[in-house]
């Protein structure tokens, strides 16, 4: 059952909140009219290329740049010897050490592929060639290539991620049925089609940065702090982004290098990372491993879960990929214990990649649950329903909305789960083994304040203005729908301006928090603008609606009218003309009333005002259940996903067409994670050797089966102003275990380390 009002495509309701409006900027993108960061035509450009370390640990003794400087077209070489005079910027929480120098090209080498020099030349080709002529002398130090290296040790416990209640060890020991498994996931990468890079230009002490960004305000703050210039002097422009998946939320060292080079040269500079550099210049998903022990009664009631996990981090920062993030909240569990460690190794600090934490966590717990189901001889669907969590046992709070049961039941019905034959290896199609598996997923509702501006123009058009970004998820479209609904106008009468740090503040497009946040702000501003217009229309002596006796007005079908047709009706432009107004401009934010300018700045440029899922009265999350069918060629070990049905509870959907697209995108990434993706690290020098798209495999269209997605959500007004929960991250969570479980069902072989490549099955 769904509460969403059914809407047919092609009528005016497409253009309102909940409608299936097609991508607002779609035409621009498919016709090449959308300009991306590295495409801006800027006069007088110089081109920068990074030179990266080829050793995993040690220090740079010297950089001999003589040959490079003598090469054709070379303008500048930057090395660790150049003091750029930069200062360390705030972290995401807004914390900043005082006057600490920042070296984007550090002398100390902490991983293979770390940027240690840069060449700037008249052309990119000249810069690339000169970069090859740079001779670096290192003093090597011992390295730890990965957490499988014996020298890596056990790592350190993250106390803030330790969680437990009841007496898990005792309950486990007493449980009549127990299972234990160790599950691991490799390093995974974002592989966005658009590489990282930027075009940067100074005008005096004003800087303009064209850079793909999931957070224009947060990244602008970093540039202002690095260079010690006022925030207002930075303009970061990012109207279109060719995929981010978590990698484009923070300004990175190469941005500082390019901006410094541009200032020193007095010329605009463009810097694009090469594809291999996109594998080392910023972190992908950390490799993880986790042990899960589950104790249950003989009829399948969970008694205890004991979880111990670890993830790789760098030697200079702690980034936990929380293997215990989903473990405590998926099932009803009275005795629980979880601990997560980070193991420093010589890698770039890992980062957020779609479904951070929840994703590898779900691979562990959802694989383990099916291992338990088979040990019990129980249908994995029945086991999940039997242990359904009636509340959040970790926080003790009630769910705001949780329709995971409906997701499981409706997903199973659509998939045809009842026709399943329980025994592994019992389903066949010719010489292929067929298997079915389930994987549940979750992602927290993260709330953040935003700001938006609405302008009603004399020509009757309405502008939505925000610094929020759209990396393909649909921000332009849903904001246009929101304004169109408030003003009762067709969506093509709305203009949306996004992706510019000079525009009103916004939450990051990350952690699935943007839509809920920015829609609230736009709705608030649009409603206020409409109220302002109503006030003028009813009170202004020039208004034809003034003496109608109405105390409000209706906005519908492109016309403004008195309720129940008791007077004239006007279009927006006719009313604006009658009022003699050129523009009505209203700005609103969703911070508490009276927030100071400083608090507003902090809200848009840091995570300080971000609220976690259990900070209020409820525990708030999106949920999903994936049902996967695989076909395994037993001779060859090849796995093909032949069908996926996924049911989601993401609350109210602002645009089902775009939401379904996001869900499918997450599921496709999950197929890659399950079967293909793995950063292969050479233990001898810590190099990721498959650092290109020919060798690091992501799914092609041929790998993507029919994917049916179902919404079972109901509006959750605790989660957001308009009732939606996050949709972007949750889609990938639980896909890999669903596929791994299906592979077990098909073959009888349990693969606990991703990806499930053919040699693991032959």
């Amino acid at each position, binding site marked *: 059952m769904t509460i969403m009002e059914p809407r047919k495509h092609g009528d005016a309701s497409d253009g309102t909140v909940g409608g299936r409006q097609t991508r607002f900027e779609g035409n621009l993108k498919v016709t090449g009219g959308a300009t991306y960061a590295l495409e801006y035509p800027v006069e007088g450009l110089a081109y920068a290329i990074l030179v990266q370390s080829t050793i995993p640990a040690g220090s740079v003794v010297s950089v001999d740049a003589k040959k490079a400087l003598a090469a054709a077209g070379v303008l500048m070489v930057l090395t660790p010897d150049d003091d750029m005079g930069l200062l360390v910027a705030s972290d995401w929480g807004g914390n900043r050490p005082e006057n600490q120098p920042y070296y984007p090209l550090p002398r100390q080498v902490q991983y293979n592929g770390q940027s240690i020099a840069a060449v700037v030349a008249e052309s990119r080709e000249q810069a690339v060639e000169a970069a090859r002529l740079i001779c670096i002398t290192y003093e090597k130090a011992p390295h730890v290539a990965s957490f499988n290296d014996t020298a890596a040790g056990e790592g350190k416990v993250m106390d803030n991620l330790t969680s437990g209640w009841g007496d898990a060890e005792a309950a486990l020991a007493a449980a009549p049925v127990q299972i234990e498994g160790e599950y691991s996931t490799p390093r995974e990468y974002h592989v966005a089609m658009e590489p990282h890079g930027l075009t940067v230009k100074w005008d005096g002490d004003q800087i303009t940065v064209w850079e793909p960004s999931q957070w224009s305000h947060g990244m602008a703050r970093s540039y202002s702090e690095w260079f010690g210039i006022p925030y207002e002097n930075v303009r970061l422009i990012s109207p279109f982004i060719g995929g981010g998946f978590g990698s484009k939320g923070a300004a990175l060292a190469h941005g500082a290098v390019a901006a410094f080079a541009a200032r020193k040269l007095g010329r605009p500079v463009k810097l694009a990372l090469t594809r291999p550099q996109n594998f080392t210049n910023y972190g992908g998903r950390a490799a993880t491993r986790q042990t899960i022990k589950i104790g249950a009664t003989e009829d399948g009631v969970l008694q205890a879960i004991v979880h111990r996990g670890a993830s790789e981090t760098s030697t200079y920062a702690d980034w936990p990929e929380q293997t215990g993030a989903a473990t405590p909240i998926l099932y009803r569990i009275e005795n629980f214990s979880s601990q997560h460690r980070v193991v420093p190794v010589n890698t770039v600090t890992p980062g957020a990649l779609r479904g951070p934490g929840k994703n590898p966590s779900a691979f562990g717990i959802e694989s383990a649950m099916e291992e338990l189901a088979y040990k019990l001889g129980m249908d994995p669907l029945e086991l999940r329903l039997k242990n359904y969590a009636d509340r959040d046992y970790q926080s003790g709070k009630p769910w705001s909305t949780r329709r995971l049961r409906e997701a499981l039941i409706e997903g199973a019905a659509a998939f045809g789960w009842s026709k399943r034959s329980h025994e592994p290896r019992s389903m066949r199609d010719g010489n292929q083994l067929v298997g079915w598996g389930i994987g549940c997923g979750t992602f927290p509702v993260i709330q953040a304040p935003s700001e938006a501006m609405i302008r009603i123009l004399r020509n009757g058009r309405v502008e939505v203005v925000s610094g929020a970004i759209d990396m393909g998820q649909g921000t332009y479209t849903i904001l246009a729908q929101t304004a169109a609904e408030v003003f009762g106008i067709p969506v093509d009468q709305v203009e949306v301006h996004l992706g510019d740090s000079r525009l009103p503040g916004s939450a990051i497009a990350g952690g699935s928090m943007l839509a809920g946040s920015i829609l609230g702000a736009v709705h608030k501003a649009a409603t206020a603008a409409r109220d302002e217009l109503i006030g003028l229309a009813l009170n202004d002596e020039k208004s034809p609606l003034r003496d109608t006796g109405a105390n409000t007005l209706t906005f519908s079908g492109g016309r403004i009218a008195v309720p129940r047709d008791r007077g004239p009706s006007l279009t927006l432009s006719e009313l604006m003309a009658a009022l003699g107004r050129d523009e009505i401009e209203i700005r609103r934010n969703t911070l508490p009333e009276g927030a100071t300018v400083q608090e507003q700045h902090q809200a848009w440029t840091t995570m300080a005002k971000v609220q976690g899922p259990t900070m209020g009265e409820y525990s708030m999350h999106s949920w999903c259940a994936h049902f996967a069918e695989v076909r395994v060629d037993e001779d*060859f070990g090849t796995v093909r996903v032949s069908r996926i049905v996924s049911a989601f509870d993401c609350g109210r959907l602002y645009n089902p067409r775009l939401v379904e697209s996001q869900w499918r995108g997450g599921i496709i990434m999950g197929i890659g994670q399950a079967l293909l993706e793995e950063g292969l690290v050479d233990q001898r020098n810590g*190099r990721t050797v498959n650092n290109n798209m020919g060798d690091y495999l992501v799914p092609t269209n041929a*790998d993507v089966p029919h994917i049916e997605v179902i919404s079972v959500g109901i509006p959750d007004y605790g989660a957001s102003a308009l009732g939606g929960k996050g949709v972007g991250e949750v889609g990938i969570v639980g896909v890999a275990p669903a596929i791994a479980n299906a592979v077990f069902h098909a073959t009888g072989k349990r693969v606990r380390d991703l990806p499930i490549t053919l040699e693991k099955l032959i």
Partner: protein
Amino acid sequence: MRDFSYLRASSADEARQAALQAGSVLLAGGTTLLDLAKCGVMEPETVIDITYLSGLGGIEVDANGARIGALAKMGEVADHAGIRAAFPAVSESLSLAASAQLRNMATIGGNLLQRTRCSYFREPDVFPACHKRNPGSGCSAMGGITRNHAVLGTSDTCIASYPGDLAVALIAFDAVVELGGRTVSVDDFFLLPGNTPERETVLKRGEMITAITVPASAAARNSTYLKVRDRQSYEFAAASAAVGLEFEADGRTVRDLRVALGGVATKPWRARAVEQALIGTVLSPETVEAASRLAMDGAVSHGANHYKIELAPRVVARAILKVGGLA
């Protein structure tokens, strides 16, 4: 990328003359050259564009066989009705290779000359040791990540696998490469690495592939190319097999069998031992499976590529059973 001079050849002779110069390289589809120039593996001083030459394209198929011009595109050959009828394995080897975009650019001559995907060959700045790139410098692959490396035809100097598909189908059917003044069988065209892994073919400086001819045969008409890989499309083979089969008039006894392997060897690999074991016999799944194991005679693994020794015979067996009507 290093600056280079560009020469548009106006005749094949001019191209050959120019190619005599050290540091010069022929440009056809450019899909390998551009890739390896970006990696810093190929640094040509002169690029000789032969794509404007006439007489190097075209596909002719008659009762005696096929002649495919060196500049014919992969996609054209894959889709050619005559090739599909007389040499299904050739057509399939092409349509299962690369992506549609690459198949529309890459030429048949260039396809034969594609270089290995060995990661260590492809990153000279990080892995200076590579006998193939720089003879005598060592081999970075041995002891490294070897999942895609060869198990057949390796030497102490090199374990890089030949990545292509087309050449595998060609050697199964005794195709010949025309080099202007001389012809060489495709099988002999490719060299084992031995102590000279930098020499991959018998092509001499100043020589140019002009065409490939494939003799018609009943085995070629009843052939298939089976390519096994983790990704459904656009990936090099973990193991592949080109197989063609002709029965005697009784419809059961094997008169002719051709078997070649890809993805597992340092060059396209003809498995004559498998052919010999089955010619004159009546096929059964058991005999085919046993004979297919002979394809791995002499195989040596280097760590993670060990699975290929198990996988490749299964691919060969499936392909034989398929063309034999048993699978």
